[in-house]
């Protein structure tokens, strides 16, 4: 049965991908992209990869669609059609495709027990993580504890991405600040506030979205979820607020200085937990020394670093959205 569903989902993905290729309206392409994301998340669910599906749901289908739209608002929403015959690209794609298919032949059978990936540390994670880290969700144990360095790197990547976007899109702001244009209440800003249905719905939902984000944040130890997903969901609440009540009001709720501070604070909290474990006589990011009992220490450390991850992710996502939204306003 699952094979049949998998095949159908794959088929849907193919149809979506082909439509994306044939579509010249970039706006439709963005939406089809979000559908593609939804489909792949469905596949992850079937493969039992709950945490990956969760991330795909929150990041792939939601935030990236919104950010892509933000990019579109800075460019043209129709693809430039070139009439040259694309022989060279086709040959290149065919070659690359056949190399990939050829190398896929050498991969182990789907789900084979003797696949190389199962030969290294996976057994240890599955058998020992309960005793060593003490969390029911092995994925969280691996991400936050065994591979703490790796995750710190990922958070740094997000931090860097946030800084990059701030540098690229935020520079124009300073020059416009002394101009009086900025201060004028622009017609249409926060227009959706007058859309009473959306306003009431947003008012009703926003607090619960934020609470759900925090639930995901603090229950990463037990079920799917964790800092990355929680950060994105929390940012989604702010994005909804910004969409309905206007960017200006949203910035007034969380001033830019605060988001900037939080971007750095999350990474610092993560790295700081590592330093604390160094100072208390363990290795860097070895949380066992943080409390009297190793598993308690692990629990505390994971809770703290996940919180750091969530803070950085949420702040970066909010900054990204605001940067794009602001930038379009400058263009008028």
């Amino acid at each position, binding site marked *: 049965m699952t094979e049949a*569903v998998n095949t159908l989902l794959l088929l849907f993905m193919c149809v979506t991908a082909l439509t994306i290729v044939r579509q010249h309206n970039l706006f439709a392409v963005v939406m089809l992209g979000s559908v593609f994301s939804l489909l792949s998340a469905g596949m992850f669910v079937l493969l039992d990869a*709950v945490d990956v599906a969760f991330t795909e749901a929150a990041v792939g289908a*939601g935030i990236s669609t919104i950010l892509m739209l933000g990019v579109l608002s800075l460019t043209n929403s129709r693809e430039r059609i070139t009439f040259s015959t694309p022989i060279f690209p086709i040959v290149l794609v065919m070659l690359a495709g056949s190399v990939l298919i050829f190398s896929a032949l050498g991969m182990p059978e789907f789900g084979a027990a003797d696949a190389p990936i199962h030969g290294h540390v996976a057994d240890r994670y599955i058998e020992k993580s309960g005793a060593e880290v003490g969390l029911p969700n092995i994925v969280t144990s691996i991400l936050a504890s065994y591979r703490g360095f790796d995750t710190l790197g990922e958070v740094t990547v997000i931090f860097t991405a946030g800084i990059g976007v701030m540098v690229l899109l935020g520079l124009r702001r300073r020059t416009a600040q002394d101009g009086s244009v900025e201060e004028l209440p622009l017609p249409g800003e*926060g227009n959706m506030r007058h859309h009473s249905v959306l306003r009431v719905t947003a008012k009703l939902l926003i607090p619960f979205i934020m609470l759900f984000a925090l639930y995901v944040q603090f229950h990463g130890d037990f079920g*799917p979820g964790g800092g990355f997903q929680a950060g994105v969901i929390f940012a989604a609440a702010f994005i*909804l607020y910004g969409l309905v009540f206007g960017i200006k009001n949203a910035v007034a*709720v969380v001033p830019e200085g605060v988001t900037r501070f939080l971007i750095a604070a999350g990474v610092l909290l993560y790295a700081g937990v590592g330093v604390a474990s160094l100072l208390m006589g363990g290795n860097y990011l070895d949380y066992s020394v943080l409390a009297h009992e190793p598993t308690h220490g692990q629990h505390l450390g994971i809770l703290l670093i996940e919180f750091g991850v969530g803070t950085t992710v949420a702040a970066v996502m909010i900054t990204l959205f605001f940067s794009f939204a602001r930038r*379009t306003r400058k263009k008028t």
Partner: protein
Amino acid sequence: MFTATTIAILLTMSLAIARMCIGPTIYDRVLAVNMFGTKTVLLIAVLGYLIGRPDFLDIALVYALINFIGTIAVLKFLRYGGFGDTHEMDTQDVDDKSNLSDGGPQ
């Protein structure tokens, strides 16, 4: 019986995909994507039961909420050409009489 439901939901999803591919207007596509999203919520909920892990429901919940925000973002973008934007604003909007006096947080 979960199998039958799964098949029905997949069938509905394929109908939504068809509508999304043929359009013809952009609003048809938005409508189809939105409907596709709610069907994905159902699909994940049912799949959780089909493979015996109902704790997938958190994911379904996330979808439901992301889908809504995505739809609103798409529509806002369609109407204003951006997220905090004014250009391409339609002037015939009747319920926006007071938008000239609007601005700033309360």
